[in-house]
């Protein structure tokens, strides 16, 4: 027991060392190369870090990072729920899918930033507009992957449900949703990165708070180290979210990864 614990701890450390080597190396290289930079647009990394420390680990975290995160969470949650809620019936019923497909393809083809002017007219410059922009972009991969996942449910398992009288909501919970879940999660992962992009774009377009707005303001007032520190913050923001998502994924699809790992090993 203790042995396996020590061994797995060692394994994690080993993996961590491999994964951290390149980022730390690049960071060190950049720090050294930029140290004597006199280029106005590419200030020394040390100065950017100094600004980062003062701004983002200071008051800006509450005034910019948190509002951004709030908008993203709101928009992303709505996109997930509606994407799945619409995707499930479309995946289950072919006539419905046929009827909806052309409309879906059309709306999917519109780049979401193009909708910002429209949404500004409809919802103003407030948070509603930004959340709506995030939803209009993030919903598509979730919806389309849900349709595919539901459509791809196993025939034999379906017949098993039928012979054991598993129907209605129970069929949905015990069969349709779990069997579609690996594909739904793929859609959710893509949806999250689209959501982050749209969060930034909508904030750059029209906002006084948020990461996107801050970066634009710094750029316009030629506060270049501050601007770079905002970009750095945004990178860390996205990275943190993808780590959280990966944890969620490993937990929610424990059975799926277990099964897949076993198949790969054999």
């Amino acid at each position, binding site marked *: 027991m203790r042995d396996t614990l020590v061994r797995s701890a060692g394994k994690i450390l080993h993996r961590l060392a491999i994964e951290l080597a390149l980022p730390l190396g690049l960071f060190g290289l950049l720090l050294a190369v930029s140290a004597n930079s006199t280029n106005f647009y590419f200030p020394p990394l040390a100065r950017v870090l100094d600004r980062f420390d003062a701004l983002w680990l200071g008051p800006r975290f509450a005034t910019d990072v948190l509002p951004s995160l709030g908008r993203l969470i709101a928009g992303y949650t709505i996109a997930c729920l509606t994407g799945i809620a619409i995707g499930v019936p479309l995946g289950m019923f072919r006539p419905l899918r046929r009827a909806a497909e052309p409309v879906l393809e059309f709306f999917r083809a519109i780049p979401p930033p193009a909708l910002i002017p429209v949404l500004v007219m409809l919802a103003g410059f407030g948070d509603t507009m930004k959340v709506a922009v995030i939803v209009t972009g993030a919903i598509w991969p979730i919806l389309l992957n849900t349709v595919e996942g539901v459509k791809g449910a*196993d*025939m*034999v*398992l379906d*017949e*098993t449900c*039928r*012979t*054991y*009288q*598993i129907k209605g909501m*129970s069929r949905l919970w*015990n*069969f349709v949703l*779990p*069997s579609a*879940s690996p594909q739904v999660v793929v859609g959710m992962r893509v949806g999250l990165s689209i959501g982050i992009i749209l969060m930034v774009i909508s904030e750059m377009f029209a906002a006084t708070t948020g990461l996107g707005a801050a970066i634009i303001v710094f750029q316009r007032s030629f506060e270049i180290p501050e601007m770079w520190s905002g970009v750095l913050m945004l990178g860390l923001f996205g990275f943190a979210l993808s780590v959280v998502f990966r944890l969620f994924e490993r937990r929610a699809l424990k*059975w*799926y990864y*277990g*099964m897949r790992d*076993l198949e790969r090993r054999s």
Partner: protein
Amino acid sequence: MAINEVAVVSVSHLNKVYLSRERRVEAIGDLTFDVAAGDFTCIVGPSGAGKTTLLKCLSGLLAPTSGAILVNGHAVVGPPAEMAVVFQEYGRSLFPWKTVRENIELPLREKKIAKAERARLVDEALAAVALTGAADSYPWQLSGGMQQRVAIARAVAYQPKVMVLDEPFAAVDAQTRADLEDLMLRLWTELDLTVIFVTHDIDEAVYLGQRVLVLSSSPTRILDDVPIDIAGPRSQATTRVEPGFAELRTRVYRGIQQAKASQSIKG
């Protein structure tokens, strides 16, 4: 009619025609048979004999073109609640996101059986197939033979009036297959089951059944209805070498050869 009173499954003049734009395929010609309560009936036929079609009609997954099927006295219009089906593809008929216990328990929950009773039924079914230790494993962590035992345990726990198995051991190795056959026989004797067992394996049919129905090739009819009068409990070591076994096996084998011959003449 005395025979109908105890018939758990009653098939009369079953006919199934597949219609597509280009052609009309008569899969099942005319099938009539009864399965009495407590019987172990094996159905054999050459490949393409419409065994799967018959099974899908029996289990209410497919509507017959004409004729009637009664299960426990009720006409089959959809999957009958009194029937449990064990599919050949064990790997695809168990829910991979549920543990063995949850797989067996789910149909019982649909039957609105109380929690304590469900736990008892699941434990008993797992003990009956000797898988008590695997209750909390996922199906994909088990071997093929064990997975099929889980599917059988699920059917047993469901307490059906009739259990239908569709070539359940076709995808496992020979040794496992022999073990599973004996498991089926033991369950049948101990739990008083009514079993319809579809197979393409003549030896298996004669070894397991109290009766073997030999099907013709499509459009399917019944070629022969063979009572298997081998006395006493069966054993892999001795039953298969008994003279009676060989005779019955030959009779069924000839029937199937005849079915194939008539098919190749037509084809």
